[in-house]
């Protein structure tokens, strides 16, 4: 092989040509909703640019219902429990399918780890094209002490600019980010903004690296050497340790960020006369066992109910479903089995129609 001028010219021509071709192809197919129709990418958000694409192209804007919530809406727990076709057993997927039969277009913005400041940020993003209805699934972790103040209270940094200044100040990290981190974040956001191929490949990556890259490689290894059954007990114990803080003796603080944001969110939605269904998502007391502080659990439920009472006359319907399902319908502390998700979807449908 001779590395001469025609050789390099040929290589450059094909590489640049394919790069331009892919850009043209994506810029014409994304607005048609092709990628959102053919791939189930709900469950994560990879960039602000992709989120804006999703809001604009993933579902028709007429008769649109927005679903907002955390991993309860997605497939992460189902995949973690190695259930096949997990993405077709999620609440997001089932609700979208059931609503489509009635001519309603459900769009899920539910993502793993989503918190109330994130939802406030999302509210700014869809404010120019408000939906016909919003279903908001609240989870106990959203109000926990861990996410009450500081940088951990926001799960997606790219939504920070959408938040009011006073809330942005409260989200400031303890340590100033290093110039390297800032540059890396800006580079990633810039590439997502201006380079369609990069934006879409990051979105498609969630199809296999889900819920995480580590889990992908674990699944791959399990396919070769088989599942380590002894590990499931360790994983369950680790999960209990991790979620214990959400259910510890702690009374939700009305002045903390979750309530501040919830108030702001509901004020904005009700001002636009958007009907809202707020659901406190089901919890599995049995899984939590001794980790659950029952008095705080009950007091916090009452506190949320009291907080939402004033919104009842403004089109906000609140349902506390924390005790709704038996332990057998759960995979863990709050994620449901496929049968549980089907039942939850059915109940949400009835609730939306006011027939529950």
């Amino acid at each position, binding site marked *: 092989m001779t590395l001469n001028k025609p050789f390099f010219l040929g290589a450059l021509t094909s590489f640049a040509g394919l790069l331009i071709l892919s850009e043209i192809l994506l810029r014409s197919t994304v607005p048609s909703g092709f990628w959102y129709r053919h791939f189930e990418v709900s469950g994560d958000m990879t960039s602000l640019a992709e989120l804006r694409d999703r809001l604009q192209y993933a579902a028709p804007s007429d008769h649109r219902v927005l679903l907002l919530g955390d991993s309860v809406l997605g497939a992460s727990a189902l995949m973690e429990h190695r259930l096949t076709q997990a993405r077709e057993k999620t609440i997001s997927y089932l609700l979208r399918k059931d609503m489509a039969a009635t001519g309603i277009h459900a769009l899920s913005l539910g993502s793993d*780890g989503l918190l109330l400041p994130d939802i406030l940020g999302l509210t700014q993003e869809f404010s120019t094209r408000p939906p016909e209805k919003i279903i908001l699934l609240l989870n106990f972790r959203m109000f926990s002490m861990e996410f009450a103040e500081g940088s951990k209270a926001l799960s997606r940094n790219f939504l920070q600019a959408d938040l009011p200044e006073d809330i942005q100040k409260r989200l400031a990290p303890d340590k100033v980010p290093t110039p390297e981190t800032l540059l890396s974040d800006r580079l990633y956001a810039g590439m997502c903004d201006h380079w369609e191929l990069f934006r879409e490949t990051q979105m498609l*990556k969630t199809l296999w690296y889900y819920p*995480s890259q580590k889990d992908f490689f674990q699944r791959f290894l399990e396919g070769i050497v088989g599942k380590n059954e002894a590990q499931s007990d360790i994983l369950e114990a680790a999960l209990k340790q991790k979620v214990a803080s959400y259910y510890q003796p702690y009374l939700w603080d009305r002045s903390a960020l979750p309530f501040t944001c919830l108030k702001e969110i509901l004020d904005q939605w009700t001002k636009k006369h958007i009907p809202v269904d707020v659901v406190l998502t089901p919890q599995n007391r049995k899984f939590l066992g001794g980790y659950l502080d029952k008095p705080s659990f009950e007091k916090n439920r009452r506190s949320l109910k009291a907080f939402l009472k004033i919104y009842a006359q403004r089109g906000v319907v609140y349902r506390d479903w924390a005790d709704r399902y038996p332990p057998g319908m759960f995979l863990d502390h709050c994620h449901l089995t496929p049968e549980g998700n089907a039942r939850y979807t059915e109940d949400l449908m009835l609730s939306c129609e006011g027939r529950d």
Partner: protein
Amino acid sequence: MKNNDFWKGFGIGVVLFALFLAILLFSGDLSASKFIYVDF
């Protein structure tokens, strides 16, 4: 001969693009979320 080298280079360019695409699709984790795998 020169024409032949151009097409060889063209083929290499296609392979390089395929590798580049693979890097985009498989390198790194889901970087937008601060809490990858929050609940587990």
